[in-house]
């Protein structure tokens, strides 16, 4: 579909974006021509979404420029919109209470004397829906539509502006296979009319079915840009993963799995479809997959942090089996849960390290409901030492510590209860290298001491380094199970992205 004569519409050069100390996008250039469907792929955290938000003017780059039709943009979302760039967000950004027509025209409704011209509004909205060939009642509130229909309304909103560049960030994440097919054909039609399309997806087969070119990012850097006709799915996955990052498996531990501790069967919840899972004493089970695959939803449903719609969970400790219903029963049964969002779910940031660690242990640290402060101090000091809190000032507010130290505090909360099962969701996200190694050491030690461990991680080397067995989750289901000996980055990525060259 690409031809040498096609006009370049959007060109980004030398884009750099830092968040604090971390470089999210590091000198990336990208150019897309009329009628081109350009895929941008990479692992979680490779910098894809950040780059797109820079193109759409939502983020300001620290270096580099974006130009459309040869004119450099001044920056800011408005100048990007005026230049004809439309971004379909990864998270749905519709207003549930407003109608389909109002949502499509949100932000740029036709007005006269400050009043919305509702006929005009409906006409443009209907035209946009027509353009993408989706039939839906214009007066229906968004809240009454299915998640996939909302995704199409979101696209209609972008198309309504008649953009020159249409950016879609993971548009198929919430769609069924049939809907995905429809979307892909629709994008080809739009491209044929001359629109430049930038398509972000984790799903390699989709990329190969419609895209003309592919840009691969890794750790914020550009790996390569090639025409689709000159590459293969396998080569793209290799480039995303980066062969040189292969870990030395010698450092991993000997595992001696014991009895089954956690048994979950038929788990269903929002984003989770009929999952069975067991974890044995002394075993580290990894849950791999892409962001949004349903891993966090799965573990939250298992521990009862969010409601399950179906399924049964039991914990077996010293021969006694208990059923896990609500979250408090999970904690009582000896489960420790280190949530994905430590700042909102894991810690009371305005309280001290001591308070945070003591909270789940308060019963053991009190007599007849009265807190024993001497015991608390001793208890927390000891745990701060075990997890390597630096500096070990337990009366300091937790919010003043770095991310790595905060994560150690969350782990310390549960270590004190001597958990029979510890579940860690993205245990080292936003954590420096040193703290990461220490957290890995703690996780291994816990398993060596006989605890069952369940780790969710989007960080492939970490998952491979820690896990005795890896379940790969996609679309809320376990798509494949890989014993450590058979797992490598490529097999995990293939299962996670739906590239089915590996048999599950």
């Amino acid at each position, binding site marked *: 579909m690409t031809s040498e004569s096609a006009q370049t519409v959007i060109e980004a050069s030398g884009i750099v974006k830092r968040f604090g100390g971390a470089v999210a996008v590091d000198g990336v250039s990208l150019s897309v021509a009329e009628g081109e469907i350009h895929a941008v792929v990479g692992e979680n955290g490779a910098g894809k979404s950040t780059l797109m938000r820079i193109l759409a003017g939502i983020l300001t780059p620290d270096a580099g420029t974006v130009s459309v039709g040869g004119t450099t943009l001044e920056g800011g979302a408005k100048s990007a919109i005026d230049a004809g760039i439309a971004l379909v967000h990864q998270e749905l950004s519709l207003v549930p209470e407003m109608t389909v027509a109002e949502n499509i025209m949100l932000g740029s409704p036709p007005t006269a004397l400050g009043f919305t011209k509702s006929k005009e509004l409906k006409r443009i909205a209907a035209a946009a829906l027509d353009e993408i060939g989706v039939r839906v009642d214009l007066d229906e509130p968004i809240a009454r539509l299915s998640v996939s229909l909302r995704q199409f309304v979101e696209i209609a909103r972008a198309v309504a502006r008649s953009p020159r560049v249409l950016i879609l960030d993971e548009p198929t994440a919430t769609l069924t296979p049939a809907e995905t097919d429809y979307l892909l054909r629709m994008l080809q039609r739009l491209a044929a009319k001359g629109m430049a399309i930038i398509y972000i997806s984790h799903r390699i087969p989709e990329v190969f079915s419609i895209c003309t070119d592919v840009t691969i990012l890794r750790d914020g850097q550009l790996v390569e840009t090639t025409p689709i006709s000159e590459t293969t799915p396998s080569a793209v996955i290799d480039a995303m993963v980066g062969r040189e990052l292969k870990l030395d498996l010698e450092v991993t531990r000997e595992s001696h799995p014991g009895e089954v501790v956690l048994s979950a069967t038929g788990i269903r919840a929002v984003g989770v479809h009929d999952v069975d899972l067991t974890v044995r004493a002394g075993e580290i089970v990894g849950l791999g997959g892409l962001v949004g695959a349903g891993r966090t939803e799965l573990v939250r449903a298992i521990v009862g942090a969010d409601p399950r719609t179906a399924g049964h969970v039991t914990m077996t400790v010293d021969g006694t089996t208990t059923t896990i219903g609500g979250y*408090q029963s999970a904690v009582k049964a000896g489960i420790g849960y280190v949530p994905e969002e430590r700042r909102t779910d894991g810690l009371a940031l*305005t309280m001290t390290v001591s308070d945070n660690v003591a*909270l789940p242990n308060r019963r053991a640290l009190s007599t007849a409901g*009265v*807190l024993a402060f001497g015991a608390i101090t001793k208890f927390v000091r000891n745990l701060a030492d075990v997890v390597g809190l*630096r500096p070990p000032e337990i009366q300091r507010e937790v919010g003043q510590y770095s991310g790595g130290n905060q994560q150690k505090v969350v782990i310390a909360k549960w270590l004190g209860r001597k958990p029979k099962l510890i579940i860690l969701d993205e245990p080292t996200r936003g954590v420096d*290298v040193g*703290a990461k190694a220490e957290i890995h050491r703690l996780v291994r030690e816990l398993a060596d001491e006989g605890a069952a461990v369940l780790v969710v991680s989007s960080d492939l080397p970490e998952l491979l380094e820690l896990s005795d067995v890896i379940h790969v989750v996609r679309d809320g289901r376990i798509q494949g199970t890989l014993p450590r000996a058979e797992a490598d980055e490529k097999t995990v990525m293939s299962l996670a992205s739906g590239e089915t060259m590996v048999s599950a």
Partner: protein
Amino acid sequence: MATKESLTEAIAVAGSPASGGIEKKKFSPLLWIAENGVIVFTVALILFAVIFVNGFASLPNITDVFYRAAPIGIVAVGMTFVVISANYLDLSVVAQVATSAVIFIGISNLYGLLAGFLVATLVAMLYGIVNGVAVGFFKANAVIVTLSTTFIGLGILRWLSGGSIFFGPEDGPIRAFGQASLGPIPASALLLIVITIVLWFVLNRTTFGFAVRAYGSNKQATRLAGVNTTLVVIGAFVITSLAAMIGGFALAAFSNTAVSSMSDGYEFRALAAIIIGGTSVFGGKGSVLRTLLGVVFVSVLTNILVLSGIGFGFQQMAIGALIVVAVSVDALARRAAKK
């Protein structure tokens, strides 16, 4: 992703002081004022009153300040639990205080003080549980819930009492309590001090109080630490209601009378004392001792206005304005502290 080093190397890196990071908290004058300003302001206000306000520094006037501060203070220290649990406030204390006063005088007249006390306690428990279940279990908005239970409570009280004034007997135990004092300090003020100490202990030294503070600081994290947060919220409302019940007793004892309108404005004065005391409406931060200081501030200020011959309307305006200033400083200070 960037773990190219071996594990031992990585741990060696971790051992260096560079990776042990804490951000030193910058001193924020605004936050200091929000949290500790009440001490300075209260001392300044008392000094001002002693020097410039005629009749302030006399024994009868000081005793009068104590008398008026005691009921409102008891309500305020109790309500501090609801505010610290990040549930804004319990507006229904206005209905609870009047209900308790009417029960103490009315029921005691018929069946004796013990019966009055038992009925008042039962009603207080009911208030606390209804408010607490609606807010803690059904997750309804505390302001709307307690505004509604105020309506319900005052409605029932006016319906049953017919709006009449109840008088206690001159030789009854309630009258005796109202007139008892230790030097210039009335018994009701001593009761306030005892309740403050008890509630300080509950908030700062028990697992329940710990859970209330943690819940106010971060509801989700507290739930995910395994705390039964529904019980925590119900507990905070029950404590507030029991305090309001005792506040109603102190108020009834002051005049030996009770009427459904006698506690008008109490919810607001209690809130003023709590917020001016420096307990944050965002929850998690605060103490009953601060509230006690806030009560002193509000009571002295009201007394100064009365002594200066300034009418009730102006007093009301002054308290309203104080709350607006105090919550704005609090919000501004929290935001500045986050940066």
